[in-house]
């Protein structure tokens, strides 16, 4: 043993190691996925249009050109006008703003709920887990959209009449933004069980990892283990489901509005545009009025899914 008991301090001169930041490594992998990059560009364009809609749109979404109703595409109205003379191109642009308000908010609220409830269930186990997971099972058993429709259609009139009874809230209701609340609430309530399940599953597997035992052996308190060790490791599925969830929320908002229980006219919503213009479908002169919003929703949903896939691959290099 004597000859191997030699130098302890490693005195071998070395170059300091070069380290690539995880962000750089991630971007390098992500950028190799053509579809994901394309999706990202589409999403950036969507964000841009949504944010700057008032300045980008040639007309306001409520402007009515009564001399020019049901007009075919022209230079003045690139996608034509609807029955009450509103410029369809402008409404398409304003629709992006509606989607941009509804989708991220409902996804983030759903995520927060799912994160809190899922990690509580996974970390504490026992009856906390049982109660949270049974509620999520019940919500999960409904088709999500049906449940959102139920909430939206039953709550909408009540909330609005309640808000109208408050003097200060009247202008807000009239502004048309009150209905956003109902839609966002409905979509958030539908969204959390999926996230909660993912988080709970992650926490349950991660809890068994030796590094959690090691952190406990260091004396790290439970809440700190949860926030500093468990949740950061569950970040990948959270980010991925966030991206996929955005696509889903845009589609769901459009669907609610399509059925007339979402965003109400005159506020622009792609789903409402589709149903309101549906009758034109039969007059072969104006299929674009249905196609344009439909295609927009479709392309965006694909874009979010491609980005989700790309994120998943780039964040999980070992899995692929």
């Amino acid at each position: 043993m004597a000859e191997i008991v030699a130098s302890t301090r490693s005195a071998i001169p070395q170059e300091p190691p070069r380290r690539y930041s995880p962000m750089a490594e991630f971007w390098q992998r992500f950028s190799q996925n053509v579809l994901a990059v394309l999706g990202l560009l589409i999403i950036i364009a969507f964000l841009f249009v949504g944010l700057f809609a008032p300045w980008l749109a040639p007309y306001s979404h409520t402007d009515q050109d009564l001399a020019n109703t049901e007009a075919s595409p022209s230079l003045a109205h690139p996608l034509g006008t609807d029955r009450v003379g509103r410029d369809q191109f402008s409404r398409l642009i304003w629709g992006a703003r509606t989607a941009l308000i509804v989708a991220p908010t409902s996804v983030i609220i759903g995520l927060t709920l799912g994160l809190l409830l899922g990690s509580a269930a996974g970390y504490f186990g026992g009856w906390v887990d049982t109660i949270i997971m049974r509620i999520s099972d019940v919500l999960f058993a409904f088709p999500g959209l049906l449940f959102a429709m139920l909430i939206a259609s039953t709550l909408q009139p009540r909330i609005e009449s309640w808000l109208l009874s408050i003097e200060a809230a009247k202008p807000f209701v009239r502004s048309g933004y009150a209905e956003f609340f109902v839609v966002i609430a409905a979509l958030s309530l539908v969204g959390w069980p999926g996230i909660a399940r993912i988080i709970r599953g992650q926490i349950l597997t991660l809890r068994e990892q030796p590094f959690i035992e090691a952190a406990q052996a260091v004396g790290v308190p439970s809440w700190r283990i949860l926030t500093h060790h468990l949740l950061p490791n569950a970040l990948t599925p959270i980010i991925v489901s966030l991206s996929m969830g955005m696509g889903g929320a845009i589609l769901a908002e459009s669907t609610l509005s399509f059925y007339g229980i979402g965003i109400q006219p005159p506020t622009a919503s792609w789903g409402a545009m589709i149903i309101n213009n549906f009758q034109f479908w039969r007059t072969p002169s104006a299929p674009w009025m249905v196609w344009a919003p439909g295609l927009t929703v479709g392309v965006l949903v694909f874009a979010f899914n491609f980005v989700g896939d790309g994120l998943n691959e780039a964040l999980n290099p070992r899995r692929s």
Partner: protein
Amino acid sequence: MTPLLDVRDLETRFFTRAGTVHAVNGISFSVNEGETVGMVGESGSGKSVTALSLLRLIPSPPGRITKGEILFGGRDLRNVDLGAMRAIRGHEIAMVFQDPMSAFNPILTIERQLTEGMRVHLGMSAQQARKRALDLLDMVGIAHPEAQLCSYPHQLSGGMRQRVMIAMALSCSPKLLIADEPTTALDVTIQAQIVDLIQRLKRELGMAILWITHDLGVTAALADRLLVMYAGQIVEEGPLRPLYADPRHPYTIGLLQSIPRLDRGRQDKLNPIEGAPPDLVTYPVGCPFTPRCPFAIPQCHTEDPPLMEVGMGQAAACWVRPHGGELLRPQSIQTVEIPSQGS
């Protein structure tokens, strides 16, 4: 002098679907301040469960400490509340784990993990902790500490990770360091470096060490005293040299015969102990080593022997207690090197 750690009749069981696993079965031992106690035994003999029991980290369910006392600094750790236990973990008793890869959080930097104990226990600011982290990394022999602080565990070699884990364990100057097979997952040359590092740190810092290993060869360099575990029991204990010179439990004799040694050369075959350890669910009546024991007498099948004094501080749990020194001699036991302190 009262010992730093005094474990009395510790019993830990796992209540699984397949039955009750008798992992640790009433062991008693103590560790004095500044002393290094080696715990040896084949894998599955209950060493890790013992270590985790001391920190009350037995996963529950299915596990539970079912009996005994863990006296540390005058307190019975079985009775302290969870907050106090947390304040002891990593602060007064620190642990180094076997696998330096999986014991690190893969997505946190070395700095975050190395400084966590200091932030939690010593209330250090990020800067203070970082400064001490650099000193610690230097102390455990890591070159370019600044660069290593911002790396991730997978960017370090196994030996480096184990050095970092040792630095982490020492960050709050614990009174007792539990090292659970810290060299098992490493290459032989790296193993020697880590043993050497621990040896040096022990001299410089003077903490007590519970050194767990399944290899009597590596233990020898470090321990003042040895505990030999078999099937969740201590079957022999004693000071290092007497125990090596004259092991009195057939299991210890077998372990000593199976040490790979440089002087034997590669073609010389080892003498591993035949058979397998008992099933800890259907725990046997009598001495658990009986089925593998060449010396077994009828009494061994019916009665489990307690530890019996066989010499100065040496005790063996065996009805026969053969003189292992004589048995080993034909196989040139004289050449088993027991390094002197500080070599």
